[in-house]
């Protein structure tokens, strides 16, 4: 009987070896230095958040949930105002980015060596502090080895013990097959399930783990080729993605996408981020400040959108109607001009790689904007709306 058990144990060990060798290949792009100080910098965060945008329909899109009930209630205008603020807060919480930090190395930290305890048992003993309410990083896990050495547990063991005593919803003890099987992972990528992969990755791994870096890098690389950046817009993964491209000097595809979709402010911010990371001696801050004055932040924009629902029945001014028909205001045209100037400067510099493509996109946008502006002014004149500035 014991012989059988022994054979089974050996087989299990072999399985483990096969599994670990059959993991995903490492990606080509990796953070060479610690990206954390750059990422957590307030200015970077603000840029990334602004780039992510806050489309309420996307953040609060319909999902498959076990309880899909609908709650109807009466509210006063004051209550609604409060509700709007809470909604924005909730959206911001949902859009919080998983941090980009360097990979944590496992170091052996021996507490004491007690040779007297040698062969006290045939297996290691793991001791875990299960005090309630401790954060995962502060939970002490120590291991008494068979030879009597008492040391801090490796990161792997610590994570498993944490999961054992304080399970995280959705995290598995084993590696999900989509992360261990190259083919399955490739299938996920080919079906463009980027958000799904990244969400599961965030649940399964800690940001300092090598797997986290490896898999997220692979997803971002695949995204850069398929160019479906819009899938991640208004999700928590857009910021790390933009940061990844800026760090590895491959922002051009994302930039092209932003220009094509008429997100010029974001394009400027992306360029600024890349300048900031690579310490390019160029004053981008002045442009950014100018643009910020002209255009509201995503949260303010979303709040305005929510509030507009309140005043539906109120009569709108003719100027407002013209603006909604064209989709741009006077200040937007001004901001576009400034951003286009900045973008063209970038395209002209040696940092841009896909110059022809970008130039074409800028040219098309310029023509479109010109047409819109002409239409806007024509409409204003026809309706006899006076210039407020003059």
């Amino acid at each position: 009987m014991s012989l059988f058990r022994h054979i089974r144990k050996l087989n299990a060990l072999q399985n483990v070896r096969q599994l670990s060798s059959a993991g995903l290949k490492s990606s080509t792009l990796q953070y060479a230095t610690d990206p954390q100080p750059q990422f957590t910098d307030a200015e970077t965060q603000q840029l990334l958040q602004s780039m992510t945008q806050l489309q309420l329909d996307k953040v609060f899109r319909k999902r498959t949930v076990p309880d899909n009930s609908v709650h109807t209630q009466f509210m006063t205008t004051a209550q609604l105002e409060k509700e709007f603020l809470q909604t924005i807060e909730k959206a911001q919480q949902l859009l919080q980015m998983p941090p980009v930090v360097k990979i944590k190395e496992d170091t052996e930290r021996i507490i004491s060596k007690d040779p007297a305890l040698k062969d006290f048992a045939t297996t290691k003993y793991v001791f875990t502090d299960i005090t309630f309410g401790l954060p995962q990083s502060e939970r002490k896990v120590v291991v008494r080895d068979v030879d009597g050495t008492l040391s801090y547990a490796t990161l792997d063991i610590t994570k498993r013990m944490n999961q054992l005593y304080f399970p995280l919803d959705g995290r598995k003890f084993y590696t999900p097959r989509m992360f261990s099987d190259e083919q399955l992972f490739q299938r996920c990528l080919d079906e463009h399930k980027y958000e799904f992969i990244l969400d599961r990755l965030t649940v399964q791994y800690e940001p300092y783990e090598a797997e986290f870096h490896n898999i997220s890098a692979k997803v971002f690389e695949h995204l850069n080729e398929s160019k479906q950046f819009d899938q991640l817009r208004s999700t928590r993964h857009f910021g790390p993605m933009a940061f990844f491209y800026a760090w590895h000097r491959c922002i051009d595809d994302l930039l092209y996408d932003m220009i094509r979709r008429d997100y010029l402010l974001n394009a400027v911010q992306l360029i600024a981020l890349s300048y900031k990371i690579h310490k390019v001696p160029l004053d981008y801050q002045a442009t950014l400040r100018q643009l910020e004055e002209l255009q509201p932040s995503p949260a303010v924009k979303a709040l305005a959108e929510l509030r507009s629902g309140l005043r539906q029945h109120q009569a709108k001014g003719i100027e407002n109607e013209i603006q909604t028909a064209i989709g741009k205001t006077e200040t937007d045209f001004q901001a576009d001009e400034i951003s286009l100037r900045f973008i063209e400067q970038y395209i002209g510099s040696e940092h841009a790689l896909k110059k022809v493509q970008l130039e074409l996109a800028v040219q098309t946008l310029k023509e479109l904007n010109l047409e819109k502006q002409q239409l806007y002014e024509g409409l204003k004149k026809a309706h006899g709306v006076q210039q407020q500035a003059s």
Partner: protein
Amino acid sequence: MAGLLLKSIQRWKSSLRVGNFVNLGGLSSNLLISRSTSFFNKLPAEDIWRGVTAVSNAGKKRGRGKGTGKKIAKDLNKGQAIGIGKKTCIWPGLNAPIIRGNELLHQQKQSENIDREKNIQKIRDSMGNFKQMKINPIDRGWSGTKMPGRSIGPPDTVGEEEFTSFDTFVLENKIVFIMKGNMGRKRRYSVLSVTGNKNGLAGFALAKGPEVRTALRKSKNRAGQKLMSINLYENRTINHDFYTGFGKTKIFVSKKPDGYGLVCHRALQTICKAIGIRDLHAKIEGSTNLQHIVKAFFIGLMRQKTYQDIANESCLHIVESQMARNGYTEIKASPHMDPKNADNDRIIDFMQFTLGNKIVLRKKSVPPFYAQSMGYTKHEIKKERFRNQANVRLHKLVNNYNYNYT
């Protein structure tokens, strides 16, 4: 003696006709006396059959002879032809031409037809029984072959008004009696049906007729003339929860999210199908008289208010928060007047408002009598360690036993 013999021979001849058998050997000792007359050869087949299959006039009035054991007259001539019998034979002029080519045909015996008897019997067997029409399971009503719940097609066109995309469902089909001066107790069929276009337009009607078919037709066409427009929410459910009643019937109807289905009385399910409601929950309390249920439900549907009306009436915004959208609140209607601004104004509950200040009694489920017993507690303890087994097994299957023990 000689006279007797002669007579007996005569009788023998006649008895041959009716197929009796006479023993000639024991002629002198025992003679069989047979009568050649019976109702079999006096009455025509039609009358004989009527005697077996028909029901008396009085019985007919009472509705006898309509059930499953109904006998039907058989045509015994079916499967038989002149000139072809037990023994096959060529009879020139009867079942064959007299002259074939230049040759004169002669009477000629042929091989015996063994299956003939069997085939005739088969034909007769197939005639005798009353056969029910098979209904497709999809077209079936609430129960068996009964009419309630079954579809009877759109109402007939009136002039140039066509009832396209309409469908009618029978809700009730029953026999009712009234007393007539000269006829006495008179029987009629009463049919209640609902017709609708599955898009918020529906009507129901009760009609009586001497036959089921006429009653069905009358009811269907009358329902088509009494259409009501019903306001649907997202084209799938009601506007809001409501309470409605008729007579002793009380119905609590609640609005449900997409994909919930129809969880209610079968009559309400059928009505909802006709109207086009797909998600709804309804609890009937009190009497379940079908006609009252139908009336109460339609009254409730007609009394529904739109969100805009409710908002105007209460001077408050109506807001919906969906769990499927992570609790995102959506303004559904805002009052035309300036909404109440003060926070200390008492804000009524939306459901209370729509239910007309009624509260649905939700009974607590009573634990089974054995819940407190020692045996059950033991069982629970034993069961506890297997509580996650199904889940684990599923995950094992999913991961194909490849666990990563590291």
